[in-house]
């Protein structure tokens, strides 16, 4: 037990643990819709756009989150707009929009030789890098995500499962999609310092696909995914401290391990289901 309690003496670890718990739970929730809407690549793309925006913001003497947020939201709006008529598929739109924004950030870093900002934490996550400000932003984004998704549960589920029937039932599917894209962008940006740009996609997807292996019910999948996200976040953060490797990598590797275990459980569930069906 001591190895669990000892790191809690440090304030930076308590911050990191709380951040990983909140990010894990909210990513687990939002990840269910990401996976079921076939948007698994979106988190990866938006994180790249956000980092491009963060670099632009820093060169303009703005806060890290201001630039990341502006560029991330802009990317989400542009992607939403250009995929609306179905001529350009989502994956293609993400590929061009977010990569272009990331490229802009890289170009600025290359041009400004005196650029001092260390982006290693943002790329791979760093438990030392989570400040009180980060924690506040993560808490705020988690609250907004949980509350919004709680009250739009019915509209989100219906429009994700059957968009046309949802429209016939009076759901404005385009605003629902836009709202979801904005929440996803905020979640991705809030996750950057905890898991890093390169790992965000996996933290969104892994808990959701693991939960899918464990249940056939949507409401249970949501609960399992949030729980798994929070647990893997906290465990990954401990592993990061113990093994002294970036937190993003330990969270993702532990999530992948849990997912692998769920693959072993799936055949047993299928057999049980076959036996219980009439």
């Amino acid at each position: 037990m001591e190895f669990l309690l000892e790191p809690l003496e440090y304030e930076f670890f308590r911050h990191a643990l709380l951040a990983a718990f909140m990010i894990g739970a909210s990513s687990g929730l939002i990840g269910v819709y990401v996976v079921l809407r076939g948007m698994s690549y979106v988190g990866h793309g938006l994180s790249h756009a956000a980092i491009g925006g963060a670099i632009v913001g820093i060169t303009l003497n703005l806060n890290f989150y201001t630039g990341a947020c502006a560029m991330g939201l802009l990317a989400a709006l542009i992607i939403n707009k250009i995929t609306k008529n179905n001529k350009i598929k989502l994956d293609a739109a993400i590929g061009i929009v977010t990569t272009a924004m990331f490229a802009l950030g890289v170009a600025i870093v290359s041009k400004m030789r005196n650029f001092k900002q260390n982006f290693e934490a943002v790329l791979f996550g760093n438990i030392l890098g989570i400040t009180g400000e980060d924690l506040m932003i993560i808490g705020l984004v988690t609250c907004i995500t949980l509350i919004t998704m709680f009250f739009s549960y019915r509209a989100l589920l219906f429009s994700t499962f059957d968009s046309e029937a949802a429209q016939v039932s009076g759901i404005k599917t385009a605003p629902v999609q836009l709202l979801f894209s904005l929440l996803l962008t905020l979640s991705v940006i809030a996750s950057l310092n905890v898991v890093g740009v390169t790992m965000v996609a996996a933290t969104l997807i892994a808990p959701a696909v693991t939960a899918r292996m464990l249940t056939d019910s949507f409401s249970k999948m949501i609960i399992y995914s949030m729980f798994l996200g929070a647990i893997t976040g906290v465990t990954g953060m401990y592993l990061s401290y113990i093994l002294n490797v970036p937190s993003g990598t330990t969270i993702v590797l532990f999530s992948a391990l849990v997912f692998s275990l769920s693959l072993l459980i799936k055949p047993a569930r299928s057999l049980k289901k076959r036996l219980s069906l009439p």
Partner: protein
Amino acid sequence: MPATFPSDPQVHHAVKLTGVTAGYEHNIVFDNLSLEIAAGQFVGIVGPTASGKTTLLKIILGLHSAHAGKVQLHDSTPANKVKPGAIGYVPQLGSVDWNFPVTVAEVITMGLYTNGRIWPWLSGQEHARVRDLAHRLNIDNCLQHHISDISGGQRQRAFLARALINNPKLLILDEPTSGVDIKTQHEVLHLLSDINREGISIILTTHDLNAVASHLPWIICFNRGIVAQGRPRDIFTNEIMTRTYGGDIVIVKYQGHLLIANSTPLNFNGDNQ
């Protein structure tokens, strides 16, 4: 209390289209189409692939805008301003993602969105409504099953329950008989017939001419416009079928039933003779 589907005796037209032109960008699917479907009717729309049946349904459902013309539902309400829940819609089951993690109960409760309730969980009244409807449609024993773990007929009834949960005045089904065996086709059409007798107007599209010939009271033959409409015995003639499908179709009357077949059978090698 059993679920019932009250009708409105004051409504004369379930659907009224006047001079409607519709299509996609530069491709006009049908032009200047006028169509009236009386309240309480049970109508089947038949026609070849790409004849515009689905576009017609989407225009009625408000999912697609007409280039020109007027679409009215329930007499005077513009189609895109119909009260949510007034139309029940059952999509083609072929378009459903059967791996989506939802149980039969969760599918049915999706239809309750229009109640205006913001809480994710169901109220006691909503629970009772789901149970009653499931019991009536004979799917109450599989409410907690995943949608892929039930039979084709049960799947169709689960989506029908979702469409009926708000007591709609009009029920629209896109090819409800496709992808199911002949026994299930008959079950589904009998069930729809029972629902129609309670006053709900029903419009469906189908490719299964034999099933609609023996079950539906009114048929619209559609091929980028209305070719003909009327009772099956008046509609299923060689002349009308040839005009609708553009090929030779044989109609046989056997023991009071109409049997429709392609006039060019396959030989044992699988080639057209």
